Structures are given as structure tokens and as C-alpha cells.
């Protein structure tokens, strides 16, 4: 009896000693390691048997947790570059298991466009989703934005927005289909899109992501307004953002939340060295 009790006590003591470094190790495990690797979709389909929707949902949640973890640990700033390739692979796998999973399309749209600049892949994924989610206005709305803002394919954008408008009956998509299909309205288009996305977002990490991007575009919009006023008064385009600040047209000076520097291109277009992404800032 005494031997057994001593053995139990010894094991409990060892467990107590071990559990703290063990938890610490898991808590600080590198992000990439945490995202891990998953088998091919063909293998997953076999293993999942009749639970494909569950496996798809778990893949999406895995990516969300991973991304949310990156944000939490760095207090709203991504300092460790996320493994976008693995994230994309997992989300593509998820929609092949469950082509109706909206979370996968929605989240993939978020990073495939702004961060990875894979606009065509993003639209191909959305096109794939549209074949299944035939009632959903969100997918053509997102694809329309990608076509107009990133791909400058205004004919395709108009078609997508038309479809989104028909499905939702909402005025926003119809408005976007007609009004913003020109180069000059790009910042306005981005702000309208980001405001709509941010408003409907519940996931804190993704919401924060939209808020940061929206702040950056609001700053760009301020510069555009100041630039136009400069053009009105001086009769010529300013060559730098600093000129607008020194003339008192742009106060306080604009700040890029991604850590980049705003500048004016030769044709007066507002741009930033960060390209509206943390990954765009060269260190």
C-alpha cells in the first residue's frame, strides 16, 4: 500500500514538474509548425468517409486559428510572415471537400488578393464556389471587386456586380457595377468594399485586418483630396506628399498603418511603399 501511494505521489510530482515546461513549449511552438501539413485531398476524402463537411470545416478553423494566433501574439501587427502557401492549400482542400463552405471562400479572398497578389487564383476559387452557392451574392460581389480593383477588367467586374445585384437586390452592388468602373474611383471603390466587409465581420483578427486596411485607404483618400486642391490652386500636380504637408493642405501628415511611406506617382496617383500589406514593407 505504501509503495503504491509513494509511486502515485512520485508520478504526480513528476507530472507537476513536467507540465509547466511542456505547456510552455506547446504555447510557444512556431506558427508554421502549428499549421502543419495535411494529407492530399484525395486521401482526406477517403479518410473522411461521410464526414467531408466536418473535415472541411476543421481545415478552415485550423487556418483561422493559425492566422488569429499570429495577430494575437503580435498585438495587431503581423511581424512573422504567415505561411500563405499552406493557408491557400488548406482552404483549396476544404472547398474540394465541401464546395459550399463559405468561410473558406471568404477567408481565402482576404489574403489571396491584398497580401499574396494572386488575383486570378482568388477569382478562380470564387468562380468554383459560384457553381455551388448559386443563391449567394457575396461570391460575385467579391469577384467583381477583384476584377475591377486588381485586374482592371471592368467588363468582367460589371458582369459579376450585375449578378451580385440580381441575387441580393442590394443597391451597393448595382451602384458599384455602374459608378466605379473607372480608374479614377479606385480608392473610393476600395473604401466602399472594405467598409462593407468590415461591418459584417465577426472574427476579431479578420476584422482588425480590414480596419487597418480601411485606415490606410482613408489616408490615401485624404492625400487625393489635398492633391486635387493643390492642382486647383497651383495649376500643376504636386511631385511629393511632403509638398502637400508643407503647403498646409494635408494636416496631420498621412501615416501608413502598414509602416510604409505614401508617395505620388508621376501621374499624380497616390501609392505607398507597403502596397497596403505588412508583407509589402521591406525591412
Amino acid at each position, binding site marked *: 500500500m505504501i509503495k503504491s501511494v509513494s509511486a502515485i505521489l512520485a508520478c504526480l510530482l513528476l507530472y507537476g514538474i513536467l507540465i509547466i515546461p511542456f505547456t510552455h513549449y506547446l504555447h510557444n511552438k512556431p506558427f508554421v509548425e502549428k499549421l502543419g501539413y495535411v494529407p492530399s485531398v484525395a486521401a482526406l476524402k*477517403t479518410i473522411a*468517409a*461521410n464526414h467531408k463537411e*466536418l473535415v472541411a*470545416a476543421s481545415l478552415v478553423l485550423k487556418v*483561422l486559428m493559425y492566422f488569429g494566433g499570429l495577430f494575437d501574439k503580435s498585438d495587431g501587427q503581423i511581424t512573422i510572415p504567415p505561411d500563405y502557401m499552406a493557408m491557400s492549400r488548406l482552404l483549396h482542400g476544404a472547398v474540394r471537400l465541401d464546395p459550399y463552405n463559405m*468561410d473558406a471562400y471568404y477567408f481565402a479572398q482576404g489574403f489571396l488578393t491584398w497580401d499574396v497578389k494572386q488575383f486570378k487564383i482568388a477569382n478562380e476559387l470564387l468562380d468554383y464556389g459560384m457553381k455551388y452557392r448559386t443563391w*449567394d451574392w457575396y461570391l460575385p460581389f467579391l469577384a467583381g471587386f477583384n476584377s475591377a480593383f486588381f485586374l482592371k477588367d471592368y467588363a468582367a467586374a460589371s458582369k459579376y456586380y450585375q449578378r451580385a445585384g440580381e441575387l441580393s437586390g442590394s443597391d451597393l452592388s448595382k451602384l458599384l457595377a455602374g459608378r466605379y468602373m473607372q480608374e479614377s474611383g479606385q480608392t473610393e471603390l476600395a473604401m466602399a468594399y472594405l467598409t462593407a466587409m468590415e461591418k459584417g465581420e465577426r*472574427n476579431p483578427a*479578420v476584422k482588425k485586418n480590414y480596419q487597418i486596411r480601411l485606415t490606410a485607404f482613408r489616408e490615401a483618400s485624404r492625400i487625393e483630396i489635398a492633391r486635387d486642391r493643390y492642382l486647383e490652386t497651383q495649376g500643376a500636380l504636386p511631385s511629393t506628399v511632403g509638398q502637400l504637408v508643407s503647403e498646409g493642405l494635408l494636416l496631420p501628415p498621412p501615416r501608413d498603418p502598414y509602416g510604409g511611406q505614401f508617395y505620388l506617382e508621376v501621374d499624380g496617383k497616390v501609392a505607398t511603399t507597403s502596397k497596403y500589406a505588412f508583407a509589402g514593407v521591406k525591412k
Partner: protein
Amino acid sequence: MHHILKITLKGIFRDRVFQGIMVTACAFLLIPGIASLSMRQVTELSLTLSLSLISFIMLLLSVFLGGTSLWKDIERRYTFSVLGLPLSRQSYLLGRFGGTALFVLLAAVVLGIAAFGVVLYSSTLYPSERPIVWSTMAICILIDALKYILLIAVAFLFSTVSTSFFLPVFGTIATFLAGGVTQQVYEYIHSAASKDLSPLVKQIATGLYYLLPNFGAFDLKVNAIYGLPVPVEGLLLTLAYFVVYAGILLSLSSAIFMRREMK
């Protein structure tokens, strides 16, 4: 047969299997919390998790109750005393099967009610863009239960030829896994992607496709989760397939069990 059916049901309750299910069903309480992690489909995720949990519990029930029921009786020599009564072996086997199948159906109803509650709660917290079609959800759970009843019939067939529980339990698990992918394999071997496959392999795969139960037809989760319409013709064909396939398995099991030597 009715007596055996009742005794089987009573035996399952006496073994506290139902209490075990209720403990496992506590996992339903976690579903709204997990589902709230979704960005755009909280209700859909709670439906996915609820239906998968029900399916998982029914899988455990059919494998372990179906795979051990008959074997346990033979091992403990209950069959000697029971079959000494004016009762045919066939009635005994069908009674045992009926009791187990009825319990799985009962579990599906109880768990289904819990799932309805969970989905209703999740949908009030975060309303879904898609309508929740309660009738499709009920049909999905019922058809899923029929799939597991078919699996119990498979377990009984293995039990009639086996002298240990290894074949019924592991054979049933293997059949469950194979039955879930037969349709995919069939589609693959009849597509252009399989042109390099030898004709013999294709013939064997086709033969297995017709031999093994096709569980793919019993999966209506995607219809229930996203409120998609259930094709009536497909549903009727699935029900007919269930009746015929279960009939084949049970008549085969009865024939083997009648001839089985018990010492």
C-alpha cells in the same frame, strides 16, 4: 422474435449503453461555442458538428453492439439455453438484430432532438443567411440511422461465421470505410483519368462496387447543412436499396446461422 427483440433492448439498457450515449451527448453543449468561431456560417457549422456527432455515436453503437451481440451470446453459451426453447434460430437472429436496430433508431431520435435544440440556439445567436430546413435535417438523421442499421446487418453477417469478436468488429469497420468510398472509386474507374488502369483491376473494382454496401447514397448532410432540396426519386431509391440490401444480408446471415455448429 418479439420476445428476443424486447430482451435485446432491455439488455442494452441494462448495460447502461444509453447512459453512455447521454454522457457523450454532452459534447452537444460545446457545439454553439465552437460554431461561433466561424466567420460566415455559424448555423451551418453547428449543423455540421451536430450531424457528425450523431453519426459518430451511431457508428460506435452499430460496430460494438452489432459486432458483439451475437458473439457474446455464443461465447457465454446463452444460445444453448435460449435455442432450447421453441424458437427458431432465424427468429432469434432477427430478434437480436431488430432489438439492436431499434436501439440505434431510438438513439438517433433522442440525439436528433438534442441537435435540433443546438441548431435552434445557434441560429438565434447568429441568424443564418440560408433557411434551416428542419424536415431535411430530420430526413438526414433518419437516413443516416438506416445506414448504421445496414452496418449492423453487416456486423451480424460477420458474427454468424466468426468464433471471436475480431472479425465482426474489424470487418464492420473495414466495410464502413470501404462502403463510404465505393462510389468515388466507381466514378474514378469510369472516368478518363483511369485510362492507364488495367481492365482486370477495373473489373475487380466494379465487382466490389456492386458487392459492398454503398453508404454514399445515405449521406444527406450537405442537403441538411445548406438547406438544399432532397431529390425525392433518389430518396426512394435509397430506401429501396436499404430494404433489399438489408434483406440480402439478413437472409444470408439466417442461412449461415441455421447451419452453424454450436458446441
